């Protein structure tokens, strides 16, 4: 290890201090959505995707699971969470209790995540996995909705197919795409102001390249341009 002068150490520590502040801001404001804690992009082992309706010729898989949680309306201020039981889960619903329109007399709630057949064809692409019905109900089965201005967060795991994906929601008799992010490799999430049926959809792509490969090519081009500029500087200074 090289000898470190005091000025270099101060500079290094200052950089770390700035980075620590940025990290604190990201984790405090965005929670798990700030990014993956695995910084090198190697997710954990995942079991093969379980299809509710395997496509013709597709290998038969174990049936997909459902998830169900019974919670108190306050839930001690913690988010409502229900997910399926695959490893890792294929679908999950998260909701802030304050975002749910809970009638005052309801003693407890049931949160369910259930794979269901698609109620209508997906218009904007190809279904990537199962459709999941996400619901919150009162005892007796009465549905409970999202408070105006509130939202729930839906997580769906993809099948591993290449291409750009988006989470669709079926409401008011039609499928519509939701703004979708990818909080972890293979996982997609979207905020929704309704509880409904949700599906991960593989959008049509004429390039044949996955989003990751296209992004990698873009990064390579950026790095190559920077690298060529550095080489050009060297040549000009000769």
């Amino acid at each position, binding site marked *: *290890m*090289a000898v*470190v002068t005091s000025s270099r*150490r101060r*500079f*290094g520590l200052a*950089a*770390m201090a*700035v*980075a*620590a502040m*940025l*990290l604190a801001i*990201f*984790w*405090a404001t965005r929670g*798990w*959505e*700030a*990014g*993956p*804690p*695995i*910084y*090198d*992009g*190697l*997710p*954990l*082992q995942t079991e093969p995707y379980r299809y509710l309706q395997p496509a013709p010729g597709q290998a038969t898989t174990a049936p997909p699971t459902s998830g169900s949680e019974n919670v108190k309306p306050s839930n001690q201020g913690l*988010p409502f969470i229900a997910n399926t039981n695959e*490893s*890792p*889960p294929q679908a999950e619903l998260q909701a802030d209790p304050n975002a749910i329109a809970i009638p005052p007399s309801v003693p407890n709630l049931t949160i369910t995540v259930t794979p269901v057949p698609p109620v209508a064809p997906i218009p904007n692409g190809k279904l990537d996995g199962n459709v999941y019905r996400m619901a919150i109900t009162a005892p007796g089965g009465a549905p409970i909705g999202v408070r105006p201005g509130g939202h729930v967060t839906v997580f769906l795991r993809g099948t*591993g197919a*290449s291409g750009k994906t988006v989470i669709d929601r079926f409401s008011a008799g039609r499928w519509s795409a939701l703004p979708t*992010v*990818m909080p*972890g*490799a*293979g996982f997609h999430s979207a905020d929704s102001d309704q509880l409904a049926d949700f599906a991960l959809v593989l959008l049509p792509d004429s390039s044949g390249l*996955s989003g*990751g*490969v296209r*992004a*990698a*090519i*873009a*990064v*390579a*081009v950026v*790095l*190559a341009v920077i*690298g*060529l*500029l550095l*080489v050009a*500087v*060297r040549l000009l200074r*000769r």
Partner: protein
Amino acid sequence: MSQPGRLARGPSVVARRRAGAGELLVVVGAATVLRLVVAGAAGASSERGAALFAVVLLAVAARAGWRPGRLRPAGLAWGLVGAVGLVVGPVVLHLAVPRQQLHVSGHGFVVWAVVVTAVAVAEEVLLRGVLFGAVEEGAGVTAAVLVTTVVFALVHVPLYGVGALPLDLAVGLWLGGLRVASGGVTAPATAHALADLAGWWLW
């Protein structure tokens, strides 16, 4: 007009270092593409793609003259501090926000851990070892920290998308500062590997 003897003999050390930095950036980009192409549909979860990525980075580092030195306790100690800084946020979230465990068994842990460690160390050796040295020699330590931070964040975009860019910029800055403060690549490599491994329990 006469030229200084140094230039008359050919490119200076600084100029050659700059060319080396440029070439390194091209290679890092190519290695990133190669990783995703080899991974195919598995994407970031491909251990084969990740392992190949690590091998390419280490080979490039070796070709650029990097050789492993002796591990020093001070570097490891700095690395432990660095790892704590990287995982404290996820640990607090893990304790405060209930979240399902995505891994229910230890199946595959050993292979996963080896590949994760190899990728982390390889990235640090090439980025904050070889590239950092090349940029610092030509443009100073501040430029070295900034360039390696940006490159570190960019190579993760294909894996996690643009959404992870702010976090990886902060992580890159943290590791760059650790590199400068500790005086070597052992500390960021240790911190990086430990933080990645912690993902087994935190994610």
